[in-house]
């Protein structure tokens, strides 16, 4: 091949790199490993984690949940045709991904009660950021009322990106589990989580009323599992619904890759960030799918684009669609019901203990917060020795230092009973 190029050495390929910039000695790194040696090295790292399972039964949530990922999802969504495809820029050879995304968009709209959903964002936090950007652009206002009930990590991400966009957030504290909104503001939007970070069901009807009075948009970060039993945010009049799609088809994976859910009313379709798949026809009039309203996107609109999203989380969206289809209409309801039952059973047992109090008595669904005689992080540390990941310690913004406990459909009565027994021991 070098001869074809009239070259005599591989170094000549890099003639345009100035001599002074070239790495004479190559990279200061070890040489490559064989496949088995590489996997051995990776396994040694993996063994240094205590994985969730029978040895560490998971009661932690707070934005990442220990749900069942069925064999069907692992085998089907991770077929190499889906895994090793690029963004569907050539729709003639990308109908598989495009149709799967169209189905995902449809499912997400059915769950949220919205009319349009995009083809995914990075995670729950990035979906919140994009929802706020949409609301600011739609209203021309810069201030957003931000509930303390929104996941604290997501709120941190919102604050980080506000340094560039210049948005102002007004923190709205929660009292007895639900957000207290100021009633004299003229914000672009209200952002509320349902159920919120401490597990409580917010009053979305009141939030909608406030948004109407102020001419603001209502942005709801929802839990897609809860949608199996709870009204959709659309039912309460949300304008944009976002959320974390990890519970459907993605293991906890130390936090990623997850799935940013984004859906909204059709009025806002031209401000939707990222990719959107639409149905159309091909030259022979046959049904076909294609990414559409492309003029919104950064590669065409450049500095005038309202979002810079390009690479998204398509594969995770496909896994989400497969998992939702696997659950089906009845299965989704049953999943939600099983989470709520486990949560009730665990909560009742813990609250029966002396010294364990609820953070609030507002209704909860599949997560709840308690305060204990010792701080939450100490409870988690001690419970790990007993074989449980007891929950996620809550920050100071929620008052007394507490612990957020989550119960999924995977938790059995025996596991919960053992958890409660150990809890009683470690809080003293």
């Amino acid at each position, binding site marked *: 091949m070098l001869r074809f190029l009239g070259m005599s050495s591989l170094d000549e390929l890099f003639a345009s790199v100035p001599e002074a910039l070239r790495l004479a000695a190559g990279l200061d790194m070890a040489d490559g490993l064989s496949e088995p040696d590489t996997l051995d090295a990776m396994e040694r790292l993996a063994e240094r984690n205590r994985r969730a399972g029978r040895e560490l039964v998971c009661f932690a949530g707070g934005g990442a949940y220990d749900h069942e990922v069925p064999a069907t999802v692992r085998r089907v969504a991770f077929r190499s045709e889906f895994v090793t495809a690029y963004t569907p820029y050539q729709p003639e050879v990308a109908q598989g991904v495009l149709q799967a995304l169209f189905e995902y968009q449809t499912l997400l709209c059915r769950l949220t009660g919205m009319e349009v959903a995009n083809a995914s964002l990075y995670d729950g936090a990035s979906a919140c950021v994009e929802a706020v950007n949409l609301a600011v652009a739609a209203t021309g206002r810069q201030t957003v009322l931000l509930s303390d009930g929104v996941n604290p990590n997501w709120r941190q991400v919102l604050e980080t990106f506000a340094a560039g966009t210049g948005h102002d957030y007004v923190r709205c504290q929660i009292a007895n589990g639900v957000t207290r909104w100021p009633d004299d503001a003229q914000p672009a939007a209200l952002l509320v989580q349902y159920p919120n970070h401490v597990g409580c069901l917010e009053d979305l009807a009141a939030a909608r009323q406030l948004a109407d009075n102020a001419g603001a948009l209502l942005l709801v970060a929802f839990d897609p599992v809860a949608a199996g*039993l709870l009204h959709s945010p659309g039912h309460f009049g949300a304008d944009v619904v976002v959320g974390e799609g990890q519970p459907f088809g993605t293991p906890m994976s130390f936090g990623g890759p997850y799935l940013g859910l984004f859906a909204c009313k059709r009025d806002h379709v031209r401000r939707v960030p990222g990719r959107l798949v639409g149905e159309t026809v091909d030259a022979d009039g046959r049904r076909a799918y294609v990414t559409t309203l492309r003029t919104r996107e950064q590669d065409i609109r450049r500095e005038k684009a309202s979002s810079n999203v390009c690479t998204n989380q398509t594969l995770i969206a496909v896994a989400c669609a497969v998992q*939702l289809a696997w659950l089906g209409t009845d299965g989704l309801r049953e999943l939600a019901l099983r989470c709520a039952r486990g949560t009730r059973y665990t909560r009742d047992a813990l609250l029966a203990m002396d010294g364990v109090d609820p953070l609030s008595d507002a209704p909860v669904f599949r997560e709840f917060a308690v305060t204990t005689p010792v701080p939450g992080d100490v409870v988690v540390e001690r419970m790990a020795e007993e074989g449980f990941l007891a929950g996620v310690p809550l920050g100071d913004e929620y008052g007394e230092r507490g612990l957020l406990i989550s119960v999924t459909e995977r*938790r059995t009565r025996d596991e919960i009973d053992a958890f409660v027994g150990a809890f009683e021991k470690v809080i003293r």
Partner: protein
Amino acid sequence: MSPSAGGRATSAPIMGRDAEPTLFELSAPGRRAASFRTTGVPEWTPAELVPGEHLRGDPAPIAEVSERDLVAHFTRLSHRQYSVDLGAYPLGSCTMKYNPKLCDDAASLPGLTDVHPAAPAPLTQGWMELLAQLEEALCRITGMHAATLQPPAGAAGELTGLLLMRAWHEEHGNPRRKVVIPDSAHGTNPASVTLGGYETVTVPSDRRGLVDVAALRERLDDDVAGIMLTNPNTLGLFEEDIAEIAAAVHEVGGLLYYDGANLNAILGVTRPGDMGFDIVHMNLHKTFAVPHGGGGPGAGPVAVSERLAPYLPGPRPVVGDDGAYRWETPPKSIGRVHSWHGNALALARAYSYILANGGDGLRRVAEAAVLNANWLRTRLRGIYDLPYDRPAMHEFVASTSTLKKGKGLRALDVAKRLLEEGFHAPTVYFPLIVDEALMIEPTETESLQTLEALGDALERIAGGDAEDARHAPRTTPVRRVDEARAARQLIPTWDARE
């Protein structure tokens, strides 16, 4: 790991031609796939668990399909999808290399997948060590001092980098207003600049296809926060004047941002840190073989020079004297840019790829990528226009400008004909500064036999009938799709159909 390229594209892959009904058409009442663990938890009713004002009446309609129907459906959809595992994917700027299967296995280890991201540090030492070692490896590869792994994609890395730039300038008195970008830049660059609170100033390319240094100097003043450069640039050319550019930008107090979209070309050859860059993002889904997943997930870590390290997002994994890892947020951190620790499993894949290749293997990646691109560029000389016909790096830009004037053959038609030949199309109409652009990046993982077949196909297409090419593709799952109709009569969901 031996990076020997393999495979020969002997024929167009067989793809599903018949339309596949949607899930919603396949749905039949009463069918289901789901099954749940036997738990023994008391079976309270919904009304006993949720207050009435929150409880939905009818369940959310999903679809009702059996496992068998579900598997057949998605398997058939997969047959209507081209992928790297099927064949060559010479998409310029996208680096669609083959993704070694060992990385799939590495990222599927239960000790990595079944770990809660908020679990306390003593329970997640393996993950924290992996992330810290990946940070270090990426710093060695780029010649930088410290890194964040949080950004989940290239564009997220860009915005993170711009916020680092802003924080740095704010600390030094004034955030400044402008960021300079070449006219050949990716669209994410100007979009990220806007979201970073800056104005884009465009600098033209010169006749060589490189940044016009004189024009750049005219644009530099003390209101310029920095410059974003891709090197090699989107024409596949190395910015030979980079040292001069870096000095000029630094002279006005600006910072240099390296867009790592094309890092594949220089692995082990040269490093952004040595060129004078202050901030570098990497696309692990390009350079480090994380598969693209039909559009994502990727990962876009950002590495910085020593003076910018205090501003990095946090928390970051830090090792103590006792060998134990803990989380630490840098003192002047811009804050979190991800819900958790970034696209962790994508990071694990990239780390396994780096381990398998090592420093020697990464250098061979760059050599083979550049060799393949230049072989194909030379093969196409005299057949297509080569507007910048000089030694390229890992990709090159050809054009059908002359073919269009001569017989009406457009870049789009070449792309569609190539689909019929069994290859994925190159990137077309980018960069914007080249008329009828075909941006071709064969990657290091394609063999000479595949390059020959690709070259032969491109020559056949150039010599073929232009009118005929307008009807291509005819052998793909669908033919050209009506994009105008999709936008005009928007159908974003199954339920939006008339």
